[in-house]
């Protein structure tokens, strides 16, 4: 029982991490059709902000976490303002290349000005301790990760359903031009989307750093690749799909590690991606994705 619960929490916490990052990708994509591969660098910015804070002698984990999250929000808004806004109306490929460009610039900045090699960052190490919960031993980090992710998703849901800006964002995901015709400023809606994606990435970054205990310039790459896969599984651009895809990926990964014999553990990713390929053959639009409806003269 203990073992099953442990594996469940493992899967759920990985899933939560993927879901947080995937949600950030999806919210930007749903609004402006941009696959933001520089999203990983937003995670790196949060982590390096934490690193610099330690350097100047501030080491209260709560303070460091809040500053790291604030840094990723600012970073995301800055990316949008400096890099993505000028190419907003350009073809999709331009946005994608811009994202890669931003990613390369930021990675190399950390590489040049900090270090190309991993640097230890144990500030959130305290989260790795085990706590007793109703007689069961569980990792604090996993509990927090699952709890915070669910809270963040709920808060986002309330924002999208209850606030006028949230309504506008839901409407804009469907039809941006019509929302502009209702007088909503495109810049504000998009900047808000980037801020939200930065916030979610910042939260994820705290958990990622807590788990690895170190930082390095390309640390955001793998998480974003996984999140991208999560988005594809769930249906690209669907926010519910991003969350669902993240958790599905987490559970499939952990499930396969359990099923595969120890000696074949290295095949985990190969098996995972084969399963995803099969899923996409059956449902090319992802689990929750719907086919794009065209047929509008004005598009």
């Amino acid at each position, binding site marked *: 029982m203990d073992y099953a619960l442990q594996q469940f929490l493992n899967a759920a916490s990985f899933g939560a991490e993927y879901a947080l990052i995937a949600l950030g990708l999806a919210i930007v994509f749903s609004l402006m059709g941009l696959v933001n591969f520089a999203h990983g660098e937003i995670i790196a910015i949060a982590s390096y902000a934490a690193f610099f804070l330690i350097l100047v002698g501030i080491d209260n984990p709560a303070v460091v976490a809040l500053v790291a999250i604030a840094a990723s929000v600012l970073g995301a808004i800055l990316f949008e303002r400096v890099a993505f806004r000028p190419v907003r109306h350009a073809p999709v490929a331009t946005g994608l290349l811009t994202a890669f460009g931003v990613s390369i610039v930021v990675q190399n900045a950390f590489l040049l000005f900090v270090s190309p090699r991993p640097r230890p960052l144990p500030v959130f190490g305290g989260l790795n301790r085990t706590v007793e919960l109703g007689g069961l031993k569980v990792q604090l980090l996993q509990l927090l990760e699952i709890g915070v992710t669910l809270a963040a998703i709920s808060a986002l849901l309330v924002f999208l359903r209850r606030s006028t800006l949230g309504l506008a964002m839901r409407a804009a995901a469907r039809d941006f031009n*019509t*929302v*502009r*015709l*209702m007088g909503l400023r495109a810049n504000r809606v998009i900047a808000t989307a980037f801020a939200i994606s930065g916030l979610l990435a910042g939260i994820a970054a705290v958990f990622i750093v807590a788990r690895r205990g170190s930082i390095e310039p390309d640390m955001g790459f793998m998480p974003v690749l996984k999140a991208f896969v999560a988005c594809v599984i769930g249906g690209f651009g669907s926010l519910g799909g991003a969350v669902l895809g993240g958790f599905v990926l987490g559970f499939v990964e952990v499930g396969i590690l359990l099923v595969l014999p120890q000696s074949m553990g290295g095949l985990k990713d190969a098996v995972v991606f084969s399963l995803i390929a099969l899923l996409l053959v059956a449902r090319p639009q992802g689990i929750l994705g719907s086919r794009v409806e065209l047929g*509008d003269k*004005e598009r």
Partner: protein
Amino acid sequence: MLEIRGVSKSFGGLKALDCVDLAVGPAEISGLIGPNGAGKSSLVNVISGLLAPDGGDVRLEGRVVSGQGPERVARAGIGRTFQNLRLFPALTVLQNIEVAAQTARECRPDRAVAMDLQAEIAALGLAGAEQLDAGTLSYGDQRRVEILRALALCPDFLLLDEPAAGMNEAESAMLATAIRSIRDRHGVGLIVIDHDLHFIMGLCERIAVLDMGRKIAEGTAQEVRHDPKVIEVYLGAPA
């Protein structure tokens, strides 16, 4: 006063609009007719800011509003509906309207306070449908919600692109009454596009006729009806 001054727009080699002039005064209902491909929707797209004109400009109370993006036009006080419905189908009727009402509260608070949206909803016969998802409504009801959503901007001018499309005669007669009532109560100037000449002739005080991107006639319903150029465009040249 909404003035369209010498507006031209080309798509590749096709001249969709060729130096079109049009003026609509406050509380005036102006009709825009013409055969398919005459440039009617292009003109509405230019006025509402979705398209930037290649030449000429659109002025609202003397200020140029063209070429600055649709949100500026909407905030300046021009609302529109669409020939192809463009409601937000996953939002409720009320939420659709709320997206526009929010802009009105921001840009023209006095009017937004004075606007009784519940009464407007009832006036268009949609009372009771507020909490339904807009995508589930009938075609005609969706058209009415589009008008309400545009009206929630508290605009000075409304552009209605084929508001009676898909409605039967009784429904379009009711719609004409509702449009006149909106004009009377809010002093809104309107440009109404429609294929249904009967509907347009009965509703509009002035009518402009577009053909091949040019304005070929303008005047009262009587004048336009007897204009030989209009007859030629609609019935073909006499053999």
